């Protein structure tokens, strides 16, 4: 075979390539990716102890041995940390990957009080293991593809074959196969290849780092995409309701959690509507405010030079700047920014008469409501709509709120990801998925839109 010559030719200027001839066979590996101990244990010791090697596969004690059919495969295995063993008539790859990863950590972006504390890492094998520990079934399939001309990143599509819809799996597979790109660094990049870029600001897919959320989504009939080198997984399809409600709700008592769920839904609308509503009722429809409160507002706004809309826009933009600087800065400086923001922009702006105290309260409610959601993209989407509502309301008042609300609903209803309506359990209305997300109730049915397998707990 001419594999050896090919490797020598193509990997000429690669310093970590090792080609080690021993007893008539050749070992080829990249020393940065491969684990020297494993090579020693699995290959070298076995080879050294035998005098004549007749059938190399029977000799090696390695648990993971793969046949190589062509040169392309060889390159792939070599570049993923396998050791290639070349004999006169065959080529095999032996898994000797070095453990270039960190250990399993607690979830940092989706923390919960109760519930499992493990989260995905950058290592695909570990991630898959975390999921397979939760779902022990041969129905859990994972289809592996490699994406990227240079990066050859491993991407794995997970689904439970008798729960997930076949069409959806086919669609995802087709999309995956058509991706042509030089390289891919994070699963977030993958998103733009799976769905056409639309004007809709809401995130198309939910990203999670919690294996329990992944397991639950798989059981519902969704598809999960894992990627090597990324500690996040994509869930397809995702609906708006999924972003609002964390899975950890399932670990607490129904009646208490339902209160929180209603609160969260309220917060979603509060964080969109509050500034607009405030502007509408203080500049157009003052009759809606109770008299004593109105006089209070009026006294507070005394001396503020800007119209309410401009005042609101200023405060909102300042808060956005604060939030952005807080996330970008190293955490040790973070507190300084918070103090500066709270003192200077909160207290001093009021005493200087630039904004009214009530506006600070309104914006604070808006921001705190939006911080209930863990996904950064949903917060950004909410911000987009917040400005839209504010601008319309500053022209049309409460009537503007009514129209913007209809526009918002129409826009959301129109949004579909992989032919699944984004606003799903609300419209089209489906009680079985509402029981999973917007409320928590006993539910024995799977939602129609996700799976043809109707009942939970049946084979």
């Amino acid at each position: 075979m001419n594999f050896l010559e090919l490797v020598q030719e193509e990997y000429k200027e690669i310093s970590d390539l090792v080609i080690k001839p021993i007893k008539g066979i050749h070992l080829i590996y990249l020393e940065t990716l491969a684990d020297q101990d494993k090579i020693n244990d699995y290959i070298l010791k076995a080879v050294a102890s035998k005098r004549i090697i007749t059938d190399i596969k029977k000799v090696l004690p390695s648990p993971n041995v793969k046949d190589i059919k062509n040169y392309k495969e060889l390159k792939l295995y070599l570049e993923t940390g396998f050791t290639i063993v070349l004999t006169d008539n065959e080529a095999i790859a032996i898994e000797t990957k070095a453990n270039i990863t960190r250990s399993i950590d607690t979830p940092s972006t989706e923390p919960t009080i109760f519930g499992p504390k493990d989260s995905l890492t950058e290592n695909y094998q570990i991630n898959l293991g975390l999921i397979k520990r939760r779902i022990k079934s041969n129905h859990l399939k994972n289809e592996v593809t490699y994406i990227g001309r240079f990066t050859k990143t491993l991407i794995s599509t997970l689904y439970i074959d008798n729960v997930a819809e076949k069409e959806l799996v086919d669609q995802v597979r087709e999309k995956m196969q058509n991706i042509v790109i030089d390289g891919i660094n994070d699963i977030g990049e993958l998103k733009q290849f799976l769905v056409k870029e639309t004007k809709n600001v809401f995130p198309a897919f939910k990203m999670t780092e919690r294996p329990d959320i992944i397991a639950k989504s798989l059981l519902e009939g969704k598809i999960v995409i894992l990627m090597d080198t990324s500690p996040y997984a994509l869930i397809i399809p995702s609906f708006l309701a999924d972003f609002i409600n964390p899975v950890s709700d399932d670990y607490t008592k129904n009646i208490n959690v339902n209160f929180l769920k209603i609160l969260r839904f309220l917060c979603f609308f509060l964080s969109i509507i509050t500034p607009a509503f405030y502007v509408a009722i203080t500049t157009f429809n003052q009759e809606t405010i109770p008299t004593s409160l109105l006089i209070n507002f009026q006294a507070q706004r005394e001396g503020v030079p800007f119209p309410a809309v401009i005042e609101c826009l200023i405060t909102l933009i300042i808060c956005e700047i604060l939030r952005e600087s807080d996330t970008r800065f190293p955490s040790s400086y973070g507190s300084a920014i918070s103090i500066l923001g709270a003192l200077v922009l909160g207290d001093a702006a009021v005493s200087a008469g630039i904004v009214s105290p009530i506006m600070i309260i309104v914006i604070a409610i808006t921001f705190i409501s939006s911080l209930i959601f863990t996904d950064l993209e949903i917060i950004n989407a909410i911000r987009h709509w917040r400005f839209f509502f504010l601008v319309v309301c500053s022209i049309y008042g409460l009537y503007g709120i009514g129209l913007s609300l209809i526009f918002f609903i129409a826009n959301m209803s129109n949004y579909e990801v992989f032919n699944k309506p984004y606003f799903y359990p609300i419209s089209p209305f489906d009680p079985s998925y509402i029981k999973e997300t917007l409320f928590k109730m006993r539910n024995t049915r799977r939602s129609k839109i996700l799976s043809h397998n109707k009942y939970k707990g049946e084979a």
Partner: protein
Amino acid sequence: MKKLILLFITLFLVTGCYNYHDLNELGIASSILIDYTDQFEVTVEILEDEKSETYKGSGKTLDNAFNNIILGTERDLYYNHLDAIILTENVNVKDIISYFMRNPEVNNTFYLVITETTDIYKEDKFGKTLSNILKRDNMSNFFDITQTLFEENQDMAIPYLNRQLKIESIAAYDEQSIAFNLSLEEIDIYKLLTNNTGSNIVTSYEGENVEIKVNEITTKYKLNDEIKIAIELEASLVEIDQTIDTSNLDTIAKIEESLNKEIVKQTATFIDKLKYTKSDILGIDKMLYNKFHNLLKTFEDYNYEIEVKTHINKKGLLLK
């Protein structure tokens, strides 16, 4: 992006026009005093943070008078938070009311009061005080008065503010002008006859005063050849001379008996007075029209039979 630019352009073009009123531009009117001599004299009480201020204006029409006020202030008048409108006796109530009914930016839960004097703004937030008093006393508000005003077969009754700035009587109208003022006792009877609780009735038992407070009441009018008014009320004893032993069951029955007689007597006098002044504030004509579909005989032509059943069901904490 194009949409965003369009939105911001419209924002800067349209903001500041059409219905956009910043809070500081609003003069929240709490009460309005309207007087008419040879032209409308209007005083508006505008609420401010802790106090209230009054502004005066005059004009040939009501709207002229209000515009005259705006000339003297930096603010626009805003009527959606009105507490009270106070009218003097020499204005036409119907015109004033329809002016405020026509305006979409006026609430309809405020109170309408007839005043004896125009010198009423001595204290801050007088309108708020007035509205609180009237609300506590279950008086009819603006909306109720509009209902009776546009009803042909009923005359209206509007609370009357006297010189001491107390609501001690109600002005009963006869078509357009005030027929007479109800005294405090008559107000209590008027409340009984219009199914309103909260009236206090005083009677004498064995020469001593007994006072009860009405908690529940049902008044029914039966219209035949004569009009029968059946009043059934549940009341609690609030004040009684301590020589009377109320632990005795007979005594309670006797007190109830004397109360019945007292209420019948007072009601009869009240209705006589209504007949005499031709002021149908009870809306009996309306009932007659509803029953007989004509008004050949109006309420003055009928005899009245009054039947009262009083039940004392509470004595408070004392046994006696």
